[in-house]
């Protein structure tokens, strides 16, 4: 089972810590009524089929991921960063874009042009002899 970390690429399942349902992402206030707390902390849809769940890339970049998986076939269909998913709704809520705001995606121009890297071609490797089966 490989989890496609958006930052690290597909990594072995062993690198990740499984938390549980995305219900955990919608925190309710500590003084919310018991039903709301019960729903968020304990009650689960627990679907047989396509689900999303929260995985933490403990053995890698330490990002929290929302993974789309199938709980019957174990197929891993995709993953997104929890942080990115939570930032997106805030940006959409701003109806009129602030002209003073710098666009996030604009790359800063480097002051000094970096020196070109030269990479030496590795020497030809001898072919590894075939091992007996």
């Amino acid at each position: 089972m490989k989890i496609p970390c958006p930052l690290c690429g597909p990594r072995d399942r062993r690198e990740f810590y499984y938390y549980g349902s995305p219900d955990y992402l919608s925190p309710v206030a500590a003084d919310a009524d018991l039903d709301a707390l019960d729903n968020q902390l304990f009650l689960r849809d627990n679907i047989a089929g396509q689900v999303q769940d929260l995985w933490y890339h403990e053995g890698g970049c330490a990002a929290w991921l929302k993974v789309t998986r199938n709980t019957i076939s174990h197929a891993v269909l995709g993953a997104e960063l929890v942080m990115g998913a939570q930032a997106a709704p805030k940006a959409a809520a701003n109806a009129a874009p602030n002209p003073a705001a710098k666009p996030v995606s604009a790359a800063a121009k480097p002051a000094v042009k970096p020196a070109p890297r030269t990479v030496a071609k590795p020497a030809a490797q001898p072919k590894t002899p075939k091992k007996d089966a």
Partner: protein
Amino acid sequence: MRYSGLKVLAEGLRGNKGWGAAWRKPDPKPEYDVVIIGGGGHGLSTAYYLAKNHGITNIAVLEKGYIGSGNIGRNTTIVRANYYMPGNSEFYSHSLKLWEGLESELNYNVMHSQRGQLVLCHSDGQRDTLARRGNAMINQGDDAELWTREQVREEVPYLDFEQTRFPIYGGLMHWRGGTARHDAVAWGYARGADQRGVDLIENCEVTGIDIVDGIVRGVQTTRGAIRAKKVAIVVAGRSSQVAAMAGMRLPIESHVLQAFVTEGLKPVIDHVISFGMGHFYISQSDKGGLVFGGDIDFYASYASRGNLPMVEHVMEAGMTLMPMIGRAKVLRSWGGIMDMTPDGSPIIDKTPVQGLFLDAGWNYGGFKAVPASGWCMAHLMATGHSHEVAKRFRLDRFRTGHTLDEEGTGSQHNLH
């Protein structure tokens, strides 16, 4: 038909022509007093004790596959009463007493073998917790012995006492713990319930639960509609799917637990041994295979099979504990669907729907609970009140804060 040694002899002389089917295969009637959804260990024992203890026999047990195809046929067969928390302690103690009379009760050989279960410890702190657990067991009226390293070595010399990563400090021996043949438990309860008039309906999947004005009326199935005054959901890992038919969300997350069996070996492991550090447990069946397992895979799953990381982890734990098994060939591995709760303890309770009952949330410890779960569920359904030893297994205990966190690992479904 009553099984006995005399019958075996007589039938042997008659060419074994007189044996009948262990249970009937009736068609479902349009209505019953009680419908039990799920023909696994707990569903069958519930039906049996409803009939035996409460005289309620107009029951249908609806099993979507064949009797024994669920977790009752997949577990690692451990039977024990070494729980610590009030709420759990008395329940499993009651269950073990039922196990001890089960073969006479069911007139069926379930091969209950009280060979002793030894839990090892690997630090001073862990030894302290075993002492506390042992005292709780003794207070409950069950047996427990706290063993030193030397005492463990004398009884179980083949463990690796040289390894320093998880040194063996000692263990807690529970002599009345042991194993039983899981298939036979299903068959014994099935036959017993059938003999008392319960209809076992196999290959009958429930597809809907009929509720009118908050009262259960019956179920829809692949073999037709069935009306019932009382309906019980006893389907382990599929509890959320069935409860959803009643519009309910449960505090359950379904996970895969893998189990393994090796080729048959000469008797070499005489007890049930539980590793205190790697969550590994092993025993040897009467057929000679080593039966063992470890943790769940830790991600939600309905696949009934797991993945290689946990296979590796279980094998590592086994090799760390008893390197002598290294040459044994693993014949089979499989998985089941575990209904994990936020505190690792089960639910035997009414639901908000009148007449609809729930027995679920056994995590991966349901096999030892089969007798008491059925006993208590039958009591609840027949009388309307929780049995004394199961009264804390409430469905709403997470909401009200009365959790039974036996492992002490906190409120996360996959940590128990």
